[in-house]
């Protein structure tokens, strides 16, 4: 007599072996994900669909159900170089290994940059041949400034045309222990288009706090690949200048 149906809830005891299509146990065993799974779980099934990525990259959708490893292109600041100034350094520069075609804009952060000499100004120069020579007589710069002491302040401006230096402050940055410059400068370098920059820095001397807000334009179609900062006519004591590349 052929069996037409088996009541599996009542007529079977024991466990069905794996080789017979069973589980080999009375409960379903856990799966070891490290060693018991092969292949990649597709995005449509809640996985990422890829077996590996690239260090420091992000996942992004490349289709409705596909993911891939990719660089972050949403805009960012990438720290390129940090210079901790030593006493007696005559200049701080960032050369062609930092100022490259990778970025069109840079941010320079100045932290308590101190001068050896008294009553000097902070300046920036550019080179298109990695420091072999510096662009001359083509920089237009201007800034507004405010001096303030207790109960007294002065608001004024200064400017230069066709200069070699881009002057970021007036010549009254002090050299005392609590004096110096902090702030930032955004520097734009779009291929061979003239470079441009704008900055906001605060400085102090023995009686005044000074605020400088300025901009520059260098009328040159070379491609800047070297930027240097100096205190006019003197050296640095200490401070930090950090360069960031900006992805816009």
């Amino acid at each position: 007599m052929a069996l037409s149906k088996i009541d599996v809830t009542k007529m079977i005891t024991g466990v069905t072996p794996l080789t017979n299509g069973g589980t080999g146990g009375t409960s379903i065993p856990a799966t070891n994900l490290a060693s018991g799974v092969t292949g990649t779980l597709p995005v449509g099934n809640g996985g990422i669909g890829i077996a590996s990525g690239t260090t420091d990259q992000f996942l992004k959708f490349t289709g409705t159900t596909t993911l891939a490893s990719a660089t972050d292109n949403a805009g960012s600041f990438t720290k390129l170089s940090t210079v901790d100034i030593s006493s007696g350094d005559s200049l701080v520069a960032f050369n062609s290994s930092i100022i490259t075609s990778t970025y069109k804009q840079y941010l320079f952060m100045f932290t308590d940059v101190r001068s050896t000499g008294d009553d000097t100004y902070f300046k920036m120069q550019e080179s298109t041949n990695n420091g072999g020579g510096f662009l001359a007589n083509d920089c237009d710069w201007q800034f507004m400034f405010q001096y303030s002491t207790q109960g007294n302040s002065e608001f004024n401006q200064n400017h230069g045309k066709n200069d070699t230096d881009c002057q970021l402050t007036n010549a009254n940055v002090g050299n005392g222990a609590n004096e110096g410059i902090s702030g930032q400068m955004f520097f734009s370098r779009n291929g061979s288009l003239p470079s441009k920059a704008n900055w906001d820095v605060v400085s102090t001397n023995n009686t005044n706090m000074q605020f400088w807000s300025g901009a520059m334009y260098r009328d040159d179609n070379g491609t800047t690949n070297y930027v240097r900062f100096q205190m006019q006519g003197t050296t640095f004591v200490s401070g930090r200048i950090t360069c960031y590349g900006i992805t816009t």
Partner: protein
Amino acid sequence: MMYKNVNGERIAMSENEIAEFNAEKTVWENESSNRKLAEIKHLRLQKLMETDFWVLRGDITDAQKLYRKDLRDIPTNYDSSKYDELLARETDKTKDNFGQLTHAVWSKP
């Protein structure tokens, strides 16, 4: 030995770079008096402008005339050895005039 800092690396400057730096430093130092005089003239202009109304309103006193004359005569009456005195400011933070110019020539009658 003089140094420059490139990308965070401290590098000895070449002889040409040192010569360029020293030449610029010398020019800067030699122009110190001219910069101070320019600052003095800037301050003088401010003070004269602040007191123009004395003249405009037509009742300027002799003391006020003398104050303005002394301001105009600063380049004649003071040589470069006096520029630092003219630019001196009160540095005692406990005083009401902290940060203010201290030379008598700036004091209004």
